[in-house]
């Protein structure tokens, strides 16, 4: 073990050891094989080794708790937590903890030295993928610079060049030293999207800055975004209502999101709840889109007998145009599809014109799910755990509100003509963020104009009702 002998101060000593200052110590260490369990100990030195470009002050906050450990078990627990904290900074490939008795002139009989041996990530990592999608191929180039200036800042650049469209994104992330959950992100992007359900194609070029911070038990995000949107028709047969929306608009919006998530996992949670409320105000900081948009997401999970989980979710939102201008098709809400009300075509519920779905200014959607492990539990504790069977009941409505009427009329509008569906299927978890579903759905309450997908429906995505 190598450590720099610090100034003889009690308590908060930290030896930081850059690679090119390796001190070779004559190691004549007697291994003290004392049983230290449950014996009061004092952590004398906490060292971090293997630092190159990372600045020391950043790490002090993450490891400071270790000094307060009182006995060996506590030291091990706190070191483990500190290791997790160091890993979540995203700048180290590997962190190992070594706990040993103190050495040196000022070593106390019950003193301990804790050393974190870290391996920093490379300065620059690149990735190259090719993707093949709906009649389109593209190559994706990604470049990541973790820990650019030494305080866990991260710069990423992604560029996708396809047969139909090109998109790119540059993003810079900076956490506050000592408070990783408080961070700032700056993004610059150009993305193109094609929406065949509305015969619309949209190119967004934008810049956004985002500030995340926790407040008591909630997480908040404040974001300003400026986007130049270019809308166009995807086909000559697009309806005139969509053609009228073609052109350029500029949206400059401030948004705030509050979320509380105490589920034990994002996919297949067994218990806990999620509440996310988002509001967006556009038009007061420039641009020509002017509206106030509110939407929320609620999910509650509860474990039942035999490893099955009952999950209920509710989504809703409304868009209020300000200043008399009608809302743009790019800002409205959409409903339907394998990720929202199952049994209906993708975003194919609600106001439409000649087969193109225009979206609506207000919506709500609810789902009730029962998840059970696969029958007979094949592949238990291994591959089989990635699957679940689920039985679901989904309902929802999407419409445009006439804001001249009162709230009573609005609620009435949203309550009439409810679309709903029920069915069962199999869900597969992908990593920790996405899931695949294969369902058999029976849609009900179908209104004229909606497109349904009864029978087998396949869905893949990140956010499901």
């Amino acid at each position, binding site marked *: 073990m190598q450590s720099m002998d610090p100034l003889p101060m009690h308590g908060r000593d930290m030896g930081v050891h850059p690679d090119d200052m390796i001190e070779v110590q004559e190691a004549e260490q007697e291994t003290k094989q004392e049983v230290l369990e449950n014996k009061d100990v004092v952590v004398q030195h906490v060292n971090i080794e293997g630092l190159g470009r990372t600045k020391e002050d950043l790490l002090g906050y993450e490891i400071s708790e270790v000094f307060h450990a009182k006995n060996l078990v506590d030291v091990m627990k706190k070191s483990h937590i500190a290791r997790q904290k160091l890993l979540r900074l995203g700048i180290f490939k590997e962190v190992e903890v070594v706990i040993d008795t103190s050495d040196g002139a000022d070593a106390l009989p019950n003193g301990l030295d804790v050393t974190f041996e870290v391996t920093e990530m490379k300065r620059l990592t690149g990735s190259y993928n090719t993707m093949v999608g709906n009649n389109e191929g593209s190559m994706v180039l990604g470049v990541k610079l973790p820990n650019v200036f030494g305080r866990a800042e991260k710069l990423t650049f992604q560029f996708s060049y396809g047969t139909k469209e090109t998109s790119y994104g540059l993003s810079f992330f900076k956490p506050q030293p000592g408070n990783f959950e408080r961070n700032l992100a700056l993004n610059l992007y150009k993305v193109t999207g094609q929406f065949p359900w509305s015969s619309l194609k949209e190119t967004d070029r934008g810049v956004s800055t985002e500030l995340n911070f926790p407040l008591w038990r909630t997480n908040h995000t404040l974001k300003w975004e400026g986007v*130049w949107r270019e809308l166009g028709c995807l086909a000559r047969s697009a309806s005139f209502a969509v*053609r*009228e929306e073609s*052109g*350029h608009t*500029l949206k400059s919006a401030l948004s705030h999101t509050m979320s509380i998530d105490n589920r034990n996992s994002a996919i297949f949670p067994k218990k806990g709840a999620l509440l996310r409320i988002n509001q967006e105000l556009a038009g007061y900081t*420039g641009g020509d889109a002017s509206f106030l948009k509110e939407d929320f997401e609620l999910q509650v999970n509860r474990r039942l007998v035999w490893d099955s989980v009952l999950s209920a979710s509710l989504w809703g939102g409304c868009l209020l145009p300000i200043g008399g201008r009608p809302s743009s098709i790019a800002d409205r809400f959409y409903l339907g599809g394998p990720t929202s009300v199952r049994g209906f075509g993708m975003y194919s519920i609600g106001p439409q014109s000649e087969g193109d779905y225009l979206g609506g200014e207000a919506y709500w959607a609810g789902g009730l799910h029962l998840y059970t492990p696969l029958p007979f539990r094949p592949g238990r504790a291994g591959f089989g755990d990635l699957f679940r069977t689920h039985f679901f009941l989904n309902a929802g409505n999407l419409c445009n509100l006439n804001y001249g009427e009162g709230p009573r009329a609005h609620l009435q509008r949203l309550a009439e003509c409810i679309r709903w569906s029920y069915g069962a299927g199999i869900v597969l978890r992908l990593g920790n963020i996405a899931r695949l579903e294969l369902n058999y759905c029976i849609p009900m309450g179908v209104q004229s104009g909606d497109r349904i997908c009864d029978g087998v429906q396949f869905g893949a995505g990140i956010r499901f009702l």
Partner: protein
Amino acid sequence: MCNLPVHVSCRSNAEYMSPSGKVPFVHVGNQVVSELGPIVQFTKAKGHSLSDGLDDVQRAEMKAYMELVNNMLLTAELYIQWCDDTTATEISRPRYSSPYSWPLNQILAYQKQWEVRRKMNAIGWAGKSLEQVYEDVSQCCQALSQRLGTQPYFFNKQPTELDALVFGHLFTILTTRLTSDELGEKIKSYSNLLAFCRRIEQSYFEDSQAGSSSRGYSKGPSLF
């Protein structure tokens, strides 16, 4: 001129709404047809045409003159608006960017300017000076004036597509405010063209005073 009911609607995104990217376009029932050629064909397929009375020779002549107008007048209009720096800065860019907010208005106006200049480069007009362009316009007007002669319309008694096209361009040139009046003056120097424009304006655009349904906007420019 075909006596078809039409409603003119002005939209800031008309250029983008059009399937080919160019105005004018018409929206009839479910169909959207853009640019003069296809519109004429479309109305012809529905049974309305202005050039039914022409024989093949005259029709070929009409097409030739329409090409002349498109190549000369249209290009000259684009040149003057976007390649002449004073006009571009004082008139074209502010007008083009007016529906949008900053910074989008600057981006779009400059984008349009680069696009037009690139097109001018491609057809070889970039090297021309403003004087040369005025000369070209003058020559084109001379050809039109000679063809018109003393007749009320280009092909004697009835207006044809050529009359509509020529009226459209000349009327626009005469009523658009530019940095100098030189272009307008050049056209006015051909008195029969001026009379031609006035005649068409009177016959077709002033007959419905109340409502102005054939105009669609409450007060438009006028030659008077």
